[in-house]
């Protein structure tokens, strides 16, 4: 049994796992745990972005709820996922749970897939609906996130759409997070990159010259928002994964009022509309997750047909900027876990994957090495996963005894294992992530693999490397010293 499985089983026994079916119940827990602060005074809309940046700068920064936003009716919350404490609470774990333990627990729950959702007819999001004189500003307190964004953006919208060629296929229903620029009271822009599921669906709809209906869900329960930005296979259901990550408790979904799409029943707001076929319009720039602005592009246009919302809807949005900000916490383990699972299918030797750096543009793999060149082959497998293909650019491979979440250990492996002449490989002219400013032209990458594992035959092994193991009694002394240190503080 691998260390991952062993440690996960231990967690299974001690984790009770609180399940959230909407955003509000999660915010209550955050507040009770000291991980949410309220701003009761009225603020200008454009102050919210700065507060999101500020909170993510703090160690275990809280969510920030703005009760009154100047000129608007409803509150805004930001930085809901923006710390490891909030991330742990999202899974019903203790807020002090270390990152590696959160990774292991997510992996344990991941294998519960599929857990189909419970379908409900009535849902709080149906308390109000706007179908005429649509004005998104009446419901959402919209604001510019970063100085040179081209307008107000939805940065945390969970968007539901179906496959135009197979619209009744539940498994092909997509829930994904894509940036949306507000362009009018009933008009939005959308970024649908070709390798994203919604890009595939839009291309199919446009080949038929048909509009693509979508349901834009805002303020979902925290694990639904988490899964919405998790890379999984095209024919896998995000809803079934939310149930798995809820530790086997099904999420609740309902039919959207206008298009009958499956939506999270607990969301605060559901905007329904369609992407106009074969229409593109200037969109962006937008401050993006790589920590720089994307350029302006010609992108899709959405016409809004209805807005459903809970009473006193809370607008949830996130700040994204130079890492780390809320988006880095949101994308850290939801990138690492699926990549680990995909690698493990082919290479059971893989122990863990840390793909927390800029949505997996940087990734560290820890693996047992069976023979010379094995580490490089594992890295190449990462580059052929659906997410790794465009995103992963710099991959470091370390031995199984190196913790990829411990950067000091990774640097040790790099400094003592890498012979730059044979262990560094560049693979040219590969698919790339166009929002990475080093992608040249946008959408193309050269990939870098660093093999920081110890050499194995038949690779030439110049000399045997005997690891310096901790002297007997080290664990005992860790406990004694740690206890004495605690006592000296008191």
């Amino acid at each position, binding site marked *: 049994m691998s260390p991952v499985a062993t440690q996960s089983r231990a967690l299974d026994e001690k984790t009770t796992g609180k399940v959230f079916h909407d955003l509000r119940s999660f915010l209550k827990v955050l507040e009770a745990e000291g991980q949410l602060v309220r701003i009761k005074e009225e603020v200008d809309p454009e102050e919210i972005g700065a507060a999101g940046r500020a909170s993510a700068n703090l160690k275990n920064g809280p969510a920030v709820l703005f009760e009154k936003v100047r*000129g*608007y*009716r409803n509150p805004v919350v930001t930085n809901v996922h923006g710390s490891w404490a909030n991330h742990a609470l999202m899974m019903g774990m203790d807020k002090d749970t270390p990152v590696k333990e959160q990774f292991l627990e997510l992996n344990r729950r991941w294998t519960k897939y599929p857990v189909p959702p419970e379908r409900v007819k009535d849902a709080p999001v149906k308390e109000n609906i706007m179908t005429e004189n649509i004005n998104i*500003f009446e419901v959402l307190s919209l604001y510019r996130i970063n100085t040179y964004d081209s307008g107000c953006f939805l940065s945390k919208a969970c968007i539901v759409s179906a496959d135009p060629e197979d619209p009744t296929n539940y498994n092909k229903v997509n829930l994904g997070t894509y940036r949306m620029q507000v362009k009018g009271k009933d008009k939005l822009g959308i*970024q649908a990159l*070709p390798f994203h599921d919604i890009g595939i669906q839009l291309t199919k709809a446009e*080949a038929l010259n048909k509009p693509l209906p979508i349901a834009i869900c805002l303020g979902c329960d925290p694990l639904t928002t988490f899964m919405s930005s998790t890379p999984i296979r095209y024919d896998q259901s995000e809803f079934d994964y939310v149930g798995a990550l809820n530790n086997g408790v099904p999420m609740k979904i309902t039919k959207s009022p206008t298009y009958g799409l499956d939506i999270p029943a607990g969301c605060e707001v559901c905007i329904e509309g369609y992407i106009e076929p074969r229409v*593109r319009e200037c969109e962006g720039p937008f401050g993006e997750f790589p920590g720089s602005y994307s350029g302006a*592009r*010609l992108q899709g246009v959405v016409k809004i047909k209805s807005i459903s919302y809970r009473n006193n809807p809370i607008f949830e949005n996130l700040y994204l900027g130079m890492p780390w900000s809320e988006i880095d916490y949101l994308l850290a383990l939801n990138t690492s876990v699926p990549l680990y699972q995909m690698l493990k299918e082919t290479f059971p030797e893989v122990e863990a994957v840390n793909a927390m750096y800029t949505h997996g543009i940087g990734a560290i793999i820890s693996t047992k090495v069976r023979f010379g060149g094995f580490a490089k082959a594992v890295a190449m497998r990462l580059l052929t996963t659906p997410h790794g293909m465009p995103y992963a650019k710099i991959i470091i491979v370390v031995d199984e005894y190196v913790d990829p979440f411990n950067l000091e250990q990774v640097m040790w492996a790099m400094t003592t294992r890498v012979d730059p002449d044979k262990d560094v490989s560049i693979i040219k002219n590969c698919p790339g992530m166009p929002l990475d400013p080093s992608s040249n032209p946008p959408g193309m990458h050269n990939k870098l693999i660093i093999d920081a594992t110890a050499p194995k035959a038949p690779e030439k092994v110049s000399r045997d490397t005997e690891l310096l193991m901790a002297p007997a009694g080290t664990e005992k002394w860790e406990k004694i010293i740690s206890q004495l240190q605690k006592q000296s503080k008191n």
Partner: protein
Amino acid sequence: MICPRCETDKVNLMVKSPVGNVWEIYICETCTYSWRSTESADKTDPKLYAQSFKIAPNEIPKLLVIPPIPPLKG
């Protein structure tokens, strides 16, 4: 009114504040840049808007198309 970003004059009122008539948001028909009347001058004044973020109207049709528009089927 002139768009701070592309400096064309096709600017529309997008919305007035739902509460209290305390601001308006304007949008440029040409480049879709939008701004709130209460934002700082570096976002609303064409003379103070950062040069590196300006966009020339004749460059807009040449921007990258995402995703590419496919050929029609059948």
